[in-house]
């Protein structure tokens, strides 16, 4: 588990976006609550007390299935993400990982 549970927001700890491992297994952070909305979803992390937004229902589908999927890539594919869109989804997932909304899971 790469999830550091902190009571502080730590924007400075962000890693370069490209380093997000699409082939690793991920999950929603256990302290994150998800509220579906017509535009996608709101995410709130009770540990860091930060709010994030998922700006499309499809991204919500990806995030919601991370825990059951072998990898982030298979989660994207099963949610119908086209190959051409994959870099955008990788960037979005990377942002979520940087803010600890999602974290790697040991399979």
């Amino acid at each position, binding site marked *: 588990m790469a999830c550091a549970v*902190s009571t502080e927001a730590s*924007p400075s700890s962000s890693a370069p976006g490209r380093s997000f491992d699409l082939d690793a297994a991920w999950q929603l952070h256990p302290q994150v609550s998800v509220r579906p909305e017509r*535009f996608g979803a709101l995410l709130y992390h009770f540990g860091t007390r*930060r709010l994030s937004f998922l700006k499309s229902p499809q991204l919500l589908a990806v995030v919601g299935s991370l825990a059951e999927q072998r990898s982030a890539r298979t989660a994207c594919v099963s949610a119908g993400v086209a190959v051409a869109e994959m870099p955008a989804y990788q960037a979005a997932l990377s942002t979520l990982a940087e803010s600890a909304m999602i974290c790697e899971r040991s399979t």
Partner: protein
Amino acid sequence: MTTTTPLPLVEQFQLGLDAPICLTWELTYACNLSCVHCLSSSGRRDPRELTTAECKAVIDELERMQVFYVNIGGGEPTVRPDFWELVDYATEHHVGVKFSTNGVKITPAVAQRLAASDYVDVQISLDGATAEVNDAVRGTGSYATALLAMQNLADAGFRGFKISVVMTRQNVAQLDQFKAIADRFDAQLRITRLRPSGRGADVWDELHPTAAQQRELYDWLVARGESVLTGDSFFHLSGFGDGAGDSLPGLNLCGAGRVVCLIDPVGDVYACPFAIHDNFLAGNVRSAGGFTGVWRESDLFADLRRPQTGGACTSCSAFDSCRGGCMAAKFFTGLPLDGPDPECVRGNAESALLQVAAGSAPKPSLDHSHRSRPVALTLTTRRAPVSDCNENPLAGFSPSAG
């Protein structure tokens, strides 16, 4: 995933959500202080205050609506005898709590308890980096009380609590000192905008930052980025930006009645914490439909969620960034709601303000101020003491992902 978004988030939020993202809940009008700029004119307890059972029913609703957290304030919320019971009830029901306090009840034992919970955050109100500046606004001894509370939190290992500052003409020059205090306690600085709400209307002319100070404040914030929280309350300053990346973090949006609101101690629901006036009263949580009914069905909130006209501001090049500024600031200075903010950085409010007849600006609908005003002020303010009422409901939001 902006490529698949039909509308930008800001526009989605302007149309309102089925539940607030978060809300401010003033639990009591009772307060041990009488700060001169108290936005809720607090002091005396209102006998019609929601009971413990009624508060728990509201929390049940918030849980069902998936409201992530509430910003609890007052008055001084910790003087309610059932305060900790309500905090525990909220967190057990998956409603996080951020509460604002002047520190009066933050003993070492309380600090230990707070440090042990991930679901409770604390904001200590401080309006001067020195006792002289702070106590002139918040009352004699309030600086010492706040600093002791901070020390107790730090000693208990509570890292990252918030120090919440309302920016005034007297303390803009102390920004670096506030940051140093926050760093000393391993806390996070949160600064918010003074509003002419509640008793704040009485001291607005003397305390609101000058035009030069607004610029200083903006530049200071842009340089600090997300390391300083603002509750998104300075969006009226975004007209200073040149659109090339020097903008303020946050949504830069008035969320009143759209994504935030206020529940006051007697259960009245207002569009925002800075708008305690009958014109912005949407309903009461004691009504048949409860809070949910008010949020989803009130005529006032339906109005606020309709596309708004920019009025006189529409032709201004800054309108897309500042959106005309703060509704409450306009209202309580007697300005039209579809015109410029009284602190418009382009100076567009100056002529309109001159046309407001003395004494004609709307008065708050409620006043729970202490009847005696024992604290002598030493700076330029003319009235006595406040509560920790500087609550913006978008506190701490950082729309970072997606």
